[in-house]
């Protein structure tokens, strides 16, 4: 568990704090996304965890211990670190790059070699093909994967990731995000993830900390709750006018409780894949100019009816901020 306790940071020679009275907890095995506009102190907050930046006041506790209890280098070797610009060592092979922290920790050569191959497999790079290559030979997306593998190398319980998928094209980014969600399902790390992109935050986060300028925590909650009950105008404008749709994009059709067909005529109704998000299903309905669709279960037994009313019921409470007056 990572715990921020009244953390403040003001850079020397500056009047304005970049982080103010920041207090929150990141539970074990959760991804906590720090998100906010530029200048909101999200990267500074993350870098204070592994003491690349020291707070002006306040404490950061890791499993109950202040992170100042051990030397900076010892602390950092126990926390995975992946950044947008990746920062691979261009003069070292992919295997050597990934092996950086295991070598600092004096792992046995065999163990390190095994771990490197295991990680290359995990991030979807064929070990035999990639381990002895140099970073310059890899595409941007492949380098990002190596960056993540390198951060995971010594199996640290905590990972810090600063826009780790920021430097690639949108299609590759989506794929890397999906892959990372899958990987996290296996490794269950405690992750602090920085991004400026609210959609990425909603997609990746178990919890989201929305920061506003000056490093003030505007809201800290699950993506669902932030979308349903934004705590302030700042939060609702930051998450965007489409927050109802964003919330629907967190839900899958197959998880909805839907009525069986009960003899309803299905002629002409669109067939909706149960694996779609509710947002995509809504888009299908609108595209088909109907208010109802037929959901085919994955295993093929039972068909159910998806209605616009059911979708509206889901988004209830997340309606637009004000209502029109006559």
């Amino acid at each position, binding site marked *: 568990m990572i715990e921020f306790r009244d953390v403040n940071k003001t850079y020397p020679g500056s009047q304005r704090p970049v982080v103010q009275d920041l207090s929150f907890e990141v539970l074990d095995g959760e991804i906590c996304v720090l998100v906010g506009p530029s200048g909101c102190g999200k990267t500074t907050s993350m870098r204070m965890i592994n003491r690349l930046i020291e707070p002006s006041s306040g404490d950061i506790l890791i499993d109950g211990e202040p992170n100042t209890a051990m030397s900076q280098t010892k602390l950092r070797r126990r926390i995975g670190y992946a950044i947008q*610009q990746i920062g691979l*060592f261009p003069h070292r092979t992919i295997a050597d790059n990934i092996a950086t922290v295991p070598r600092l920790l004096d792992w046995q050569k065999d163990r390190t070699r095994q771990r490197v191959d295991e990680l290359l497999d995990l991030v979807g790079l064929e070990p035999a093909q990639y381990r002895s290559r140099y970073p310059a030979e890899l595409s941007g997306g492949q380098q990002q994967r190596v960056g993540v593998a390198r951060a995971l190398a010594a199996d640290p319980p905590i990972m810090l990731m600063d826009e780790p998928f920021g430097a690639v094209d949108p299609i590759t980014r989506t794929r890397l995000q999906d892959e990372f969600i899958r990987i996290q399902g296996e490794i269950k790390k405690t992750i602090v993830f920085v991004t400026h992109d609210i959609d990425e935050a909603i997609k990746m986060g178990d919890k989201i900390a929305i920061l506003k300028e000056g490093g003030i925590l505007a809201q800290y909650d699950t993506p669902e709750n932030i979308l349903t009950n934004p705590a302030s105008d700042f939060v609702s404008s930051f998450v965007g006018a489409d927050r109802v749709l964003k919330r629907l994009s967190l839900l899958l059709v197959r998880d909805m409780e839907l009525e069986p067909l009960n003899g309803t005529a299905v002629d002409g109704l669109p067939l909706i894949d149960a694996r779609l998000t509710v947002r995509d299903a809504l888009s299908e309905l609108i595209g088909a100019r109907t208010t109802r669709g037929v959901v085919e279960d994955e295993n093929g037994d039972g068909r159910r009816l998806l209605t616009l009313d059911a979708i509206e019921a889901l988004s209830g409470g997340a309606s637009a901020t004000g209502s029109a007056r006559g």
Partner: protein
Amino acid sequence: MRPLRVARVDSSPGLALVLQDFYVEKERPLIDWVWISENFSDDILPALLGHMYLSFVSVAIALVISLPAGVFVSRYRKAYAPVTFVTGILYSIPSLAAFAILVTVPGIGIGPRPVIIALVAYSLLVLIRNVVAGLDAVPAETIDAARGMGLTARQILFGVELPLALPVIVAGVRIATVTIIGIATIGFFVAGGGLGQVIFSGISRDFPTMILTGALLTTALAVVTDFLLLRLESFLRPSARTKRA
């Protein structure tokens, strides 16, 4: 023969070649192969080795000074201007003047010593500047990633920064060495040894074979050194790092 007096203070092979015409009139062969073979092991080879010794020892000493100085200056930026200023002055002293001044310093005298000291002084500007430029060119994110993973400052310097700065540092070594191979010929005037000896003796003896031997060997030494260091430089560039099959 007036022109020869002019030639005495100039070591450039170009002028020596111009002077060929005079020698041809005197019906001597341009290249006396018999003289070369008779004097090769006693005079020519020792002069070449002496020249290499002067040049490489000077650059080596200069590098030992410049590496820590460059690292220091790249960390404490305020020191960069004064260091460049001082080494710039050293660099601008005419070489013959530098040798002459050093000879008068007690404990130095004539011989290779003043030559090496002056050559070291000449190399400092280029070398320190390239060490700093090389360190500056290391990507900030690479250093940030190294820090974030828990490398110590020393591990970052020796494991990341210097290896990545190496191509630029070697480029500086190349420029310094080639420059110094040329300047070292003038060391003859303070009995420094080297190929300058062969060139200037040839001129004073009015003996083209000797002049050309010295001049061409100096040129060859400079060209070959340049080529080899250039190869090393491009070999070290990370962008050239691909799987070497």
